């Protein structure tokens, strides 16, 4: 981001602050929740903090920023105070944002594991494991190691893990250092270590799967994953759909707010340097971005190919002489065009294919093929129909079959008109793949989310990924342009 853009952003935010802050009076150094009157409080949606405030202080204003976004919200004044789990403070560089702890030891809460009701056996086994693990003091040792101040103590125990048998799939979401976070070698953290111990104890292989937080509850209900460690609290409402284990950890909240006094920002260049180091270089995070990039390219390629095939099929139906095929195609086109893509993907994964436990990549490809196939088919149809009927007749009159006429005469001309439209659709498709994180695919956007949740840097990972999408669409566009150019008729010298 250029300094100028940065300035504009800050200007906008400060305008926002000055607008929303007008007439707002609150205690800048609260010592407890009772001191928060009049302020705007940021706590993640559905969190225990939010519930606490709505129960005890219904007059308070709460907003829903979480993780890195919360820090920025508090820093910029969109919120005045935010709440995080105390253990999470280990990962936060509050100084960098000009923030500080206001009060802590607030709202002690306990986190259980969540299990799918489709496979209730796992929950029982885990509870038995937890009981033993706590009884012999292993739990305290593990907690002491991971939650202490010494970074060198945060490592995964070397255990002999079972390799055979049906594995239990554990859903992970974004980083919550040091519970769970992502390194170049895969997931790490206290929770991962705990699951390894469980696996070694029970003989059940454990497989980790990264998904969007919002996608985990439906995945549990559909049984595509068996268990999750993200900290959902046990509520009656949730217990109707999923099973909760005994709690395995407890934590309390910390309130953070802006430092008193004037906060001097570091110069832009040094902040940029720090961002690059933090988000890309440390722990080889660039590898995560690169892996994500390859996944994005892979899924884009599969989806484009599948969409072209689906589009050709739907187009053939739409242009068929048989009335019922035409009608089927028309109805399909009209329905699919009215469903949001994300909803379509989730329906496919959690409803249509729920019982087959398919590869998310396959589901994403099918979803994109259906969704974009519809758009492709309409662009194909317009392209083909834009060719004068006389071209068909000329082909027939020479003695070509319908198929040969189409392939040799109509298609080469239609392609020239289809490709420019197709290019726009294809770029839309590539950008749309950024939602596959929702169905447990670790793409580039998901990688940036991971890094954001680990480094608490709101902007840099987003901008990096935006730039990569830009380059990617440009690259695909360039390929199509070359195809277009090669199809454009040229002179010959005879």
């Amino acid at each position: 981001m250029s300094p100028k853009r940065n300035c504009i952003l800050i200007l906008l935010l400060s305008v926002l602050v000055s607008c929303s802050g007008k007439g707002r009076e609150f205690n800048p150094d609260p010592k407890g929740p009772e001191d928060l009157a009049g302020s705007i409080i940021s706590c993640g949606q559905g969190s225990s903090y939010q519930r606490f405030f709505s129960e005890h202080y219904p007059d308070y204003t709460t907003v829903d920023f979480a993780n890195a976004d919360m820090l920025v919200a508090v820093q910029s004044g969109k919120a005045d105070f935010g709440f995080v789990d105390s253990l999470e403070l280990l990962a936060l560089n509050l100084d960098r944002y000009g923030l500080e702890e206001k009060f802590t030891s607030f709202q002690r809460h306990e986190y259980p594991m969540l299990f799918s009701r489709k496979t209730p056996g796992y929950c029982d086994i885990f509870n038995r494991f937890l009981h033993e693990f706590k009884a012999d003091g292993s739990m305290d040792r593990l907690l002491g190691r991971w939650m202490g101040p010494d970074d060198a103590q945060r490592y995964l125990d070397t255990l002999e893990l079972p390799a055979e048998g049906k594995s239990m799939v554990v859903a992970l979401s974004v980083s919550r250092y040091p519970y769970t976070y992502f390194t170049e070698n895969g997931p790490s953290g206290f929770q991962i270590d705990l699951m390894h111990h469980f696996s070694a104890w029970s003989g059940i292989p454990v497989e980790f799967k990264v998904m969007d937080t919002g996608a985990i509850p439906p995945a549990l209900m559909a049984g595509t994953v068996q268990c999750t460690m993200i900290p959902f609290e046990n509520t009656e409402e949730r217990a109707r759909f999923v099973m909760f284990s005994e709690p395995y950890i407890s934590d309390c909240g910390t309130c953070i707010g802006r430092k008193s006094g004037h906060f001097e920002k570091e110069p832009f260049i040094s902040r940029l340097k720090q961002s690059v180091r933090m988000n890309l270089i440390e722990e080889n995070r660039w590898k995560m971005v690169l892996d994500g990039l390859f996944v994005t390219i892979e899924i884009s390629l599969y989806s484009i190919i599948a969409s072209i095939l689906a589009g050709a099929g739907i187009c053939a139906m739409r242009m068929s002489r048989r009335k019922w095929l035409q009608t089927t195609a028309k109805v399909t086109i009209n329905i699919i065009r009215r469903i949001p893509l994300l909803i379509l993907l989730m329906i496919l994964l959690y409803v249509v294919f729920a019982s087959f436990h398919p590869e998310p990549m396959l589901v994403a490809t099918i979803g994109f093929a259906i969704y974009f196939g519809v758009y492709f088919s309409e662009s194909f149809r317009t392209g083909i129909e834009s060719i004068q009927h006389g071209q068909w007749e000329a082909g027939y009159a020479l003695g070509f079959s319908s198929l040969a006429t189409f392939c040799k005469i109509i298609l080469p001309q239609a392609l020239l008109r289809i490709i420019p439209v197709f290019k726009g659709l294809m770029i839309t498709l590539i950008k749309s793949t950024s939602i596959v994180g929702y169905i447990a695919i670790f793409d580039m956007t998901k990688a940036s989310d991971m890094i954001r949740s680990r480094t608490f840097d709101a902007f840099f990972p987003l901008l990096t990924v935006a730039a990569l999408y830009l380059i990617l669409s440009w690259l695909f566009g360039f390929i199509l342009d070359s195809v277009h150019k090669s199809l454009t008729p040229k002179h010959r010298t005879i």
Partner: protein
Amino acid sequence: MITVRHLNKTFHDGQKPLTVLRDVNCEIRKGEVISIIGPSGTGKSTFLRCLNRLEEPTAGQIEIDGDDILAPDADVRRLRQKMGMVFQNFNLFEHLTIIDNITLAPRNLLGLSKADAEKRALELLEMVGLGEKAGSLPNELSGGQKQRVAIARCLAMNPQIILFDEPTSALDPTMVSEVLAVIRQLASQGMTMAIVSHEMQFVRDVSTRVFFMNDGIIYEEGTPEQIFDNPQKNATKSFINRIRTLEFRLKDRHFDLYDMFGQVQRFCSKYGLGEKIFGKIQHVIEEMTSEIMPFDTAVSVVIDYSEKNGTLTMTFTQENYTAADGIIAGADADNVSLMLVGGLCSEMTEPVPGTVRILFNA
């Protein structure tokens, strides 16, 4: 070579069925050049397109060299390879160069090698005078050049007959002759052809036989001399002489004279008849309707103008005329109106009692 019997084509895609060909019967022999003429909308193009089944006939038989081409197992593609077709809008393949336009079918359908096909294509292009355009693209050519390429493209398949569907109708007048010259050359080489055309002079020169189509049938056929110089039937005559007609039916003397004049004026300006003749027509109508025609019952007035001969005929007919002596003969010798009309026109006759024919040389 081609025998057509009771050919019928009815289109069903509109609101109500539209019969374009009612009952077409004909025979086309090898080496003949058949021209098909007639007013527009009488099924000339449809007839041609039925011959290579670009349109499916509704009923009837078409036999080519004894084979029924409408049979369910007929090899339509093979049939089309033997029958070339040249379209009104050329229909060159816009994405291919001129030479590729010509070689596409021979290479794919006749199995010619690229070299052989191109050699033949260049010969054909030389023949139609476009040898230097081989590497160009269709959109760089004029309409006349495109149509000549289209003819070369047909010839590359060595067809036994070529169907021309109004080959010059989409052309600028200045380009018509170059295309006609190529067709004339083919005719002189003995190529069998069927041509739908509005170029009468060309049709007369090049055809061995002319079909005059009207109302969904071959209404009259014959040699060019028979059709052009001595047509037998009325519709043929009026088409050949390019006769334009305006008709009225007047119920009694109190008809709307000024509305009639308005229509006559539009008719005159449409066909380039000057003010002078319009004035004469007005006079004649006035005199005939006020004084001469008895108006026992309704009177019909028909104005025919032959563009070819430049003659204008007005026919006044008294319906249910019963008197034996006729209108002119029965009138007084000093009838002023009749004298006036007689002075305006170049000839006035009464071929049948009750029908007066007045002739002008426009």
